[in-house]
């Protein structure tokens, strides 16, 4: 009799083991699927056009926008990303992310005082993107840019945060 019980107990244990194995197999695709949002090898960013150079007069800082390179049909308006373009001279630009380096709110440019101001927690930046006042830990994030066939292009596609943008790309830092 006890032999029977131990055999059934063993079979029950086998059942548990079998289900654990199935759960482990199932977990692989589920976790893989869930983690698919995390950066793939080729990255998220791509070169996108901001328009002809004539839109960005020398010495001025203007709002531009681009379509996020990695987008889905159901993104709607969220696929349109703004940025600030500062034309230093005909070939030298600074393209700043709209997101405050503090917590990502949209900074606004005031040409009269030559300052960027953030409406959330009061971060202030100078025209070159360096931090002027307030809580931001660094200057505005900058996109890499290039000029091709009289068009201004930037490498974009990722929300800039302290983690997703290395500190070396700081715009002037704390001056």
């Amino acid at each position, binding site marked *: 009799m006890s032999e029977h019980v131990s055999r059934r107990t063993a079979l029950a244990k086998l059942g548990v083991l079998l289900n654990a194995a199935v759960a482990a197999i199932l977990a692989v695709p589920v976790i893989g699927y869930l983690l698919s949002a995390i950066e793939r090898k080729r990255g998220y960013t791509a070169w996108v056009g901001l328009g002809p150079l004539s839109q960005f007069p020398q010495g001025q800082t203007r709002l531009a926008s681009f379509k996020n390179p990695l987008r889905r049909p159901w993104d709607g308006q969220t696929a349109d990303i703004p940025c600030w373009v500062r034309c230093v001279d005909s070939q030298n630009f600074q393209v700043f992310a709209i997101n405050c380096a503090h917590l990502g709110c949209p900074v606004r440019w005031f040409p009269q005082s030559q300052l960027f101001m953030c*409406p*959330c927690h009061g971060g202030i930046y100078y025209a070159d993107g360096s931090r002027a006042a307030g809580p931001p830990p660094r200057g505005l994030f900058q996109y890499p840019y290039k000029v091709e066939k009289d068009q201004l292009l930037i490498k974009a596609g990722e*929300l800039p945060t*302290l*983690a997703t943008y290395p500190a070396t790309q700081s715009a002037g830092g704390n001056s």
Partner: protein
Amino acid sequence: MNRLKAVGDWLDQRLQIGPAIRDAMFHRVPAASASWWYVFGSSAFLLLMLQVVTGICLALVYVPSGAQAWNSLQTLNHAIALGWYLRAVHGWGSNFMVALVFLHMTQVFLFGAYKYPREFNWITGVFLLIFTLGMAFTGQVLRFDQDAYWGLGIGASITGRIPLIGAPLVHLLLGGPIIAGDTLSRFFDLHVFIIPALLLGLVGIHLLMVLKLGINEWPMPGRVVRRETYLKQYDELVHKDGIPFVPDAIWKDMVFGAVVLLAVLACAAIFGPFGPSGQPDPTIIQTLPRPDFFFLWIFSLLALLPPGIETPVILIAPVIVIGLLVLLPFFSGEGEKSWRRRPVSVMSVLLIAVSLGILTQLGDVAPWSPVMNAWSALPVPMQYLKGRSALERQGAIVFQDKQCRNCHALGGSGGQRGPALDSVATRLTPDQLIRQVLQGGGNMPAYGKNLNPAEVTALVSFLETLHRPGQRPARDAAESGLPAIDSGQPAEH
């Protein structure tokens, strides 16, 4: 009547849940616990049910798509019969639920109900609070307006401050590299499937434990909880001085619950639904992102923390706070239950309440935010222009044009980021004014590169006029030979 009883008996025989229901209904509770102080938990549960019902109704129309969510809310507000009211009830129900969960928690804490043997009830309660706040935040995201969009940016920016794994966590949170359609989809998933499932499951355990362990007795000063004796004492109390839950105790829960629900329905009818504010178009940067009421205190903290300690505080403080709450019954599982004998607990509650209240109030005013349109929208008060020279008036123009007003108030209006300048001339000498304007300092940017010498002269001559009549402007102590403390005093004749 007999037929009804027959049907009931037939069902009871097959379902076999009659005894359990009867046990739950007629279990004895301490007579003193049938109090108006013990009604918050049940009405929080009632509100959860209201949220489930109204949420299911809203999901009939709401489209969880980045491109359509905002439009579907407009449809609910304006094109569907009573859609606006269902949204309003859901929104106000959420506010009331957060408030009642906080009330319930405060009452449980002050009445020592978290002590032996109800430790696990407290711990599940802590997670119920977290999930309730999680529902409030994800619900705010589903409103998918400008506040939601930039609120997500703030969430991502905080996540991005986590060392080493910040970047993958940001992408996991947003469902990709940037706030977009997939971000909304995963917050929909959280708000509609994941958190509600956790919430309902935990509420079930929470309630089951209240039934199994019994409701907390009314705390009496001097009646000390001891692990060895408590269960016996409680059992005696319930048998000696107990009353059946139904109907002797439940009527207060039902009356209070009905009043709370009526208040939600009335608020919804009077104040209407929350938003949505502007459409989630990030290129519309003329926006003032603000969180919902219950997160205003976090908004304040994020503005007021010194930058140097901000990252460690926002990453470590939540862990410490949640850890302390979870561990509370383990380092205070016995002893006095009465608030009369627990001054530290009472002071802690007061301290937390006052801090949250002040931070919420500050978050509502947001004195740290520049008033983005003050320079063009608020005129310089008349009394600062009357009888002034052309140069001084020119200075007033420079003052407005250079957006000084966005951070500095004049005549009570303007930004509060920097000090009000109505009497700045009594605080700073002309030389100090020039230096402050050109070099900045404190929390003020340097204007040296953005002002030409003529503008500086005009601006400073305007600022020099800013003092009350009769007050003397600040003077350089070294030049006048007087102690600096004398400057700014009214002239004596």
